């Protein structure tokens, strides 16, 4: 029950957010509050619990890129995800720069879902869940 409570609160919050008018001050304030609380929670709960220092992480990542042939399948799949991310960002920027009905931006594609209250609530719930994963996962749990 204790473990389900945050999930129930998040779903209830997402429903409230979804049914608020998108341009209302309450909808904007609540999103801003989630961002500020999320950043604060990341600092509070992540302090002293990161798995590695940033420099060591960057160094080991660079080493993995230099020795990509040691794990060809892993390297190829990481390259695929990098390409998907670059294609997404690049095509979004290209579409945004043209401002044409034939070139919808990613946010306009999402807008097809978020224009409806339940769609907006669902996307908001997914965004909250992703934020929780970013803040709480992959931390060291040893004291």
């Amino acid at each position, binding site marked *: 029950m204790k473990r389900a409570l945050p999930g129930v609160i998040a779903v209830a919050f997402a429903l409230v*957010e979804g049914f608020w008018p*998108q341009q209302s001050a309450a*909808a*904007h304030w609540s*999103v*801003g509050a*989630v*961002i500020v609380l*999320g*950043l604060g929670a*990341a600092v509070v709960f*992540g302090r002293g619990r*990161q*798995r*590695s*220092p*940033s420099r*060591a*992480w*960057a160094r080991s*990542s660079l080493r993995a890129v230099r020795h990509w042939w040691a794990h060809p*399948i*892993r390297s190829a*799949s*990481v390259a*695929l*995800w990098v390409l*998907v991310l670059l*294609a*997404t960002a690049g*095509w979004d920027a290209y*579409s945004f720069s043209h401002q*044409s*009905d*034939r*070139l*919808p931006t*990613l*946010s*306009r*594609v*999402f*807008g097809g879902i*978020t224009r409806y209250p339940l769609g*907006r609530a669902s*996307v*908001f719930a997914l*965004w909250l869940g*992703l*934020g929780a*994963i*970013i*803040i709480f*996962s*992959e931390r060291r749990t040893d004291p």
Partner: protein
Amino acid sequence: MSALFLGAVLGDRVWIAIAVVAALGLAASLRWRRVTSPWGVLRWFLQCWAGRAFVLVAWSIAGWHLFCQRP
């Protein structure tokens, strides 16, 4: 499926193509463990403060843009 693809505007076709490539990559990562999943990429970012901060900032901007700025 092809009728949907051909009936879509150019921009939609590109988005569909990117989504199909991402779905195939996801399916491959579920089928073969050696293929890195999007979750694996996210976990790599979350190993340290720099990566976590980068993802958090991207998450914040995406949320603000999607829920507050999008007309």
